């Protein structure tokens, strides 16, 4: 077993209202960042996990996302590559 570090991004499903993203965009505008367009705010998780291989680690994290980390009704997730921690 090796210890891997895997990053997961969980974002609100496109089409769903993202008031946090909108608030950030508005705030950036009023700070003078006029070139900013759409902003989306999601969650970024970094997990350390022991696995036989990088693929195994990713697969494990996928199960975590499906069971707990992401809400299938409102969120999409993307799993980054597993790196040795």
């Amino acid at each position: 077993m090796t210890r891997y570090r895997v990053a997961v991004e969980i974002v609100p499903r496109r089409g769903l209202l993202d008031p946090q993203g909108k608030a950030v965009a508005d705030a950036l505008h009023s700070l003078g960042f006029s070139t900013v367009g759409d902003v989306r705010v999601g969650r970024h998780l970094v997990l350390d996990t022991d696995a036989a291989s990088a693929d195994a680690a990713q697969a494990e994290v996928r199960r975590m996302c499906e069971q707990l980390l992401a809400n299938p009704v409102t969120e999409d997730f993307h799993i980054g590559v597993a790196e040795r921690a």
Partner: protein
Amino acid sequence: MSTSTTASQVLPRPGDPEITPALIKEHGITPSEYERVVEMLGRAPTFTEVGIVSALWSEHCSYKHSRPLLRTLPTEAPWVLQGPGENAGVIAVKDGIAVAFKVESHNHPSAVEPYQGAATGVGGILRDVFTMGARPIALLNSLRFGPLTSPRVRYLFAGVVKGIGDYGNCVGVPTVGGEVVFDPSYEGNPLVNAMCVGVLREEELIRAVAEGVGNPIIAVGARTGRDGIHGASFASEDLSEESESKRPRVQVGDPFTEKLLLEASLELIRSGHIVAIQDMGAAGLTSSSAEMAARGDVGVTIDMLKVPVREEGMTPYEILLSESQERMLVVAHRGREAEVAEILARWDLEAAVIGEVIAEPVYRVTEGDRVVAEFPGTRLVTDCPTYTIDAVESPVLAAARARNPHDVAPLPQEDNPIWTLEQLLASPTIASKAWVWRQYDSMVRTNTLVGPGSDAAVIRLRGTDAGVALCIDGNGRYVALDPRVGGRIAVCEAARNVACTGARPRAITNNLNFGNPTRPEVYFQLSQAVAGMGEACRTLETPVTGGNVSLYNENPQGAIHPTPTIGMVGVLDSLSHVTPSAFQSVGDSIVLLGENTDELGASEYLQHIHGLAIGAPPACDPVEERRLIDALLSAIHAGTVRSAHDCSDGGLAVALAECAMMRRDQQFGFEVDLTHWSELPLRALLFGEAQGRVVVSTVAPDRVCAIAAEHGVPARVIGRVLPAADGIEMLVGDVSARLKLPALARAFHDTISDIMNGAASAASGAAPDSLTNS
């Protein structure tokens, strides 16, 4: 563990920095204080010991500049079960039910990181209350910021409010009241004072006193990390550029763990397995262990290797000074370790025996077998020097007080008093704080009979027909312009607010927010304000059961307004006496208790309309306030009062307007004739802040006036309550002012939300909200 009576060998740890004058200074220890330490130890202190001393002898923990003054405050009454000196004060209420309460400041942490600073402030004061064996039933907060026109201030304001809300909401304790003042003097040095009130049965009261040789000392709750190391001494330094470098030292709160800790602690206390319990608050493990030992006059030894830590390689110095939140120190009965651990496990909390109470009179810290710090007896706590400074009033403030408000020329628009009234109702300090308290769960626990937005909150006590009325008040501008009078007013206004709900004021806790006490003009303010508070507390029979001192509240621009905040607890023997602040029904007579005067000095009118903090604050005679409160309470108990609201910021005109429209969903108009006082300058009559006045609405004006007369309190029928549609009309001799309500109501209700939801979102909404992920 060793019980030898010969002092152990204390050697520096490998890697300890060398003890230099610079290092001593950096720890905020003066040369003479260092002398004391050397004399106490009979040798030079180790680095670990320097850290311990710097924490325990910091202003925050030792009160070295305030204790001699605090001693002058009255602390006793038949109903006081616990006065100053414990984690919180306790008073008896009724039928064996008592309440514990205390206020605590988190000013400096909140200036650096508003969300976490305010949140952990709430966490700390909750722990102070439930470690007395009381279940927290209410939170209040008193806040001061610079003007909302500054983006940084809006960021601080939004962050502090969200931090207070998120923490209290999560733990499930209703936030039922407080106050917010915006004034240039607090720019860069906001004040965040949090007050907690808990309920207990008298026999459940427990004190944080270590005793019983051989009893185990147990660390409970969150693991110890490198959080807020030196937070205690940090809170005792001027806010300066240097504080920037301390930024990584902020603490992060975990209200979820706090909730578990709350339930587990109350279960532990009820279980009888423990002797004492105390929050690891300011200066963490060091102060909690040393204070518990000192209170019990016993020795203790604690082993740093046994403390559960969050990070590797933490030194004893770091473990002792860490301010990681949501931790408790427990002294259990020997042999009950398993039972204690079992209760904590049910709540998924960690516990570790880290030391024990010993016969030998020493405060000893070990790292395994190695002794890394040892102080004789309890001298670590008792030997801290106290200081009295020669007090000299600031000539600048004396001159400001001497100025005559009537020399200030009115603005042209003031020809119409309604314009001025509208301006004042739209002043963020006076305007409705609904934007704030809508973010607080004020109803959880379903005992909130009167929530935020009134003079004081009223919480019923289940199992009795009694309730407590709670408020927190303070006016820094008054204290700046006359600390003696300002100190009196702070207490009297708090008492008046509580009495307006039908409650008898019983006791106070207080938070002294002042500047650098080593400056004679600041010490003058501190000593005079405490004297004024003491005078009022004696006359009103509201002893001081506890509080907190926050000094060095300064910023590059200088000291803040000296700001004592008074947390008042009043008791309602019967809930049938609960009285609202707002008018209740059309046709009721409006009676003014107390007297209008020509006192415009130090008013919100001068500050907001003319940008001036000048003139003498209104006179305050506690004896008259006492009479007013007695009269008001007799009238309420006689069932003659429909509503009662005191006159404070903005004076009589603002008080009347508030009675009419403080409730958005239930508004009234009114007509008043103030011709009786037409010889007073109009703006003093309408906007002056003469003390000792209450606006009452009643169906029995004659009874109310008669009862007032019996108590020697002036009372006069000034008008009646009208339907909202009729608006308001004020008549003074030949001057008459009329207005429809909507404009005033908008000014009062929307000002703050407009500012915060408007262009301000850059500094308000987004940043703090994106700080929390839940």
